[in-house]
């Protein structure tokens, strides 16, 4: 009765895929009806190699420990009124964007991976997908809990889920994930596990969270790094999925390549918001967007990952070169958009200080002074009747049909202009911010003609709390429908700023 000696991998198989069986009373297709229509061919699910070998009991143990640490830090921060020791209340505007834009995506990812765990016919990847579904729920909740404390003292945090469904700039992240979860299970897992988790989340979680640490926000740094430790598992899953699909059948290669092409550009456009947060919204900066793009994308992804994938016949994403060309423009373009429309946003923006402009000029010696600095000088002159002594773009922007960002991405070959592309499909015109977004549309027009574009919805009258009483009542009714209260306008006319000054006026500053 001596038990045979098993390797860890064999043991793990018994713990996971060994539980599966071939049904005989119904057909397997009836249990997993969504597994074939994408055209992915799987010869042998057993060739799947588990990206990590974690049992549920180990999962409980390590995840409970991670969360115990997180909540201890959060509670300490709350008890010590840690928000008062942030570098500056301006910092929190990046966290507002995070809570409104990213946290609901974590939630969508949780449900999306539940879909993978339910509908991929391979027990191995289903199991890994399930762990990720759990993790994503965790991320949603630790982020909500970290945001909850800020919500008590600052604007912009009070209605993130509601805003995510309605507010114009949040349709950018929302449409990204809606695109993924409406796809089949294979595209979803390639889009999210591979293109997003492996190739892009580093930009979101590592340098940005390091920035949070630098600005005194330990709960955000902790949830960021703690979430990212789950992310390491997710990255491993992403890489394993793609390699597995590529090895299963040669017919899968062109399909996967197209998904990589599509989802690289979708994800890259989405993370442009992070560029603006890093370069403009952190009062103390760790590294620029460009530097982190070079480190995390050019070195790690292009030089590292894609050279590894060459042998499978996979090349770097179609529009990768364009994103490299844009790296000295991107964050400036996006912040300028956010700055221009702050009258209708649930965060504040501001004209960078002289010192900040110097930093931007130093980090972007070929673009900032040449193309962007003058806009802020002019913004001081071009005042509007709205609160804040500066310019707002009083109007509605043209949006890209695919990424839904206002069409404000500089053409690096013609830097005083934005890229504008359009196409005609079934008698209607569609506009795009880039060749990447146009390519994505033309590949799947039936999908993108459905886009809920916030600007057009406003013009259709679908975004008013009550019918406007006149032209001057239009924006207020939209803001009411968004539930934007005192969350908008320039930082220096905000309640956040007023309160911050008030709270700090009778505090001794101690140098240590």
């Amino acid at each position, binding site marked *: 009765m001596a038990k045979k000696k098993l390797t860890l991998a064999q043991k793990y198989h018994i713990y996971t895929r060994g539980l599966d069986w071939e049904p005989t009373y119904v057909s397997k297709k009836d249990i997993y009806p969504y597994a074939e229509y994408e055209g992915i061919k799987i010869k042998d699910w057993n060739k799947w190699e588990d990206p990590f070998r974690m049992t549920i009991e180990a999962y409980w143990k390590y995840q409970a420990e991670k969360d115990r640490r997180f909540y201890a830090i959060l509670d300490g921060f709350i008890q010590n009124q840690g928000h008062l020791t942030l570098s500056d209340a301006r910092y929190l505007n990046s966290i507002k964007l995070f809570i409104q834009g990213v946290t609901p995506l974590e939630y969508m990812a949780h449900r999306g991976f539940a879909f993978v765990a339910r509908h991929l016919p391979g027990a191995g990847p289903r199991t890994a997908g399930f762990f990720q579904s759990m993790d994503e729920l965790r991320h949603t909740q630790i982020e909500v809990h970290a945001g909850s404390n800020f919500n008590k003292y600052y604007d912009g945090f009070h209605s993130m889920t509601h805003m995510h469904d309605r507010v114009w700039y949040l349709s950018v992240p929302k449409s990204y994930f809606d695109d993924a979860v409406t796809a089949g299970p294979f595209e979803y897992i390639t889009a999210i596990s591979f293109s997003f988790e492996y190739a892009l989340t580093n930009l979101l979680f590592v340098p940005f969270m390091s920035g949070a640490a630098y600005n005194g926000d330990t709960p955000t740094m902790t949830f960021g790094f703690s979430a990212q430790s789950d992310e390491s598992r997710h990255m491993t899953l992403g890489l394993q999925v793609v390699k597995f699909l590529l090895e299963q059948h040669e017919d899968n290669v062109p399909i996967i390549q197209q998904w990589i092409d599509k989802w690289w550009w979708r994800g890259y456009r989405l993370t442009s918001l992070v560029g603006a947060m890093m370069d403009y919204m952190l009062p103390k900066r760790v590294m620029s967007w460009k530097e982190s793009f070079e480190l995390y994308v050019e070195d790690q992804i292009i030089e590292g990952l894609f050279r590894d994938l060459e042998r499978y016949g996979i090349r770097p994403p179609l529009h990768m070169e364009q994103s490299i060309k844009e790296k000295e423009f991107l964050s400036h373009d996006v912040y300028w958009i956010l700055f221009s429309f702050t009258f209708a946003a649930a965060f504040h923006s501001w004209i960078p200080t002289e010192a900040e402009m110097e930093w931007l000029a130093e980090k972007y010696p070929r673009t900032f002074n040449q193309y962007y600095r003058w806009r802020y000088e002019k913004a001081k002159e071009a005042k509007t009747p709205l609160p804040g002594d500066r310019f707002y773009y009083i109007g509605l922007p043209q949006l890209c049909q695919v990424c839904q960002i206002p069409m404000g991405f*500089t053409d690096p070959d013609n830097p005083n202009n934005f890229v504008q592309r359009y196409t005609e499909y079934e008698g209607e015109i569609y506009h795009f911010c880039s060749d990447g977004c146009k390519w994505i549309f033309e590949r799947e027009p039936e999908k993108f003609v459905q886009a809920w574009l916030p600007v057009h919805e406003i013009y259709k009258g679908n975004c008013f709390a009550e019918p406007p009483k006149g032209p001057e009542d239009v924006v207020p009714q939209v803001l009411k429908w968004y539930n934007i209260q005192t969350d908008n306008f320039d930082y220096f006319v905000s309640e956040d700023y007023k309160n911050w000054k008030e709270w700090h006026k009778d505090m001794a500053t101690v140098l240590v």
Partner: protein
Amino acid sequence: MAVKALYNYKFPARDRAEVFGDDIIVYAYWIDNPFFCSASAWRVPKNMKWKDFVGQILGQLYGLDPDFKKVKEWKWYHFDNEFKPDDEKTLSELGLRHKSIVKFKPA
């Protein structure tokens, strides 16, 4: 290429012309002036006269730029084709359609 789906995946475009009735969406873009962070979008009647359209977009938005008043005359483009609109003609008479883009720069 079509979307791969388990059923006939076809829906009317959400923002198709008929949804806007007698109005159309028109975009406007000031060439070489990135002070305005993107082209703008307007819902206007097809029968609006060109001068009223110009009055609306320049009056509400583009006039905010201090450089605006320095411009005596504008050069106009419909998409990328230069055109010389007659002030009294309507947008549809001038060939503008739903989701047309009008570009302009100082002459």
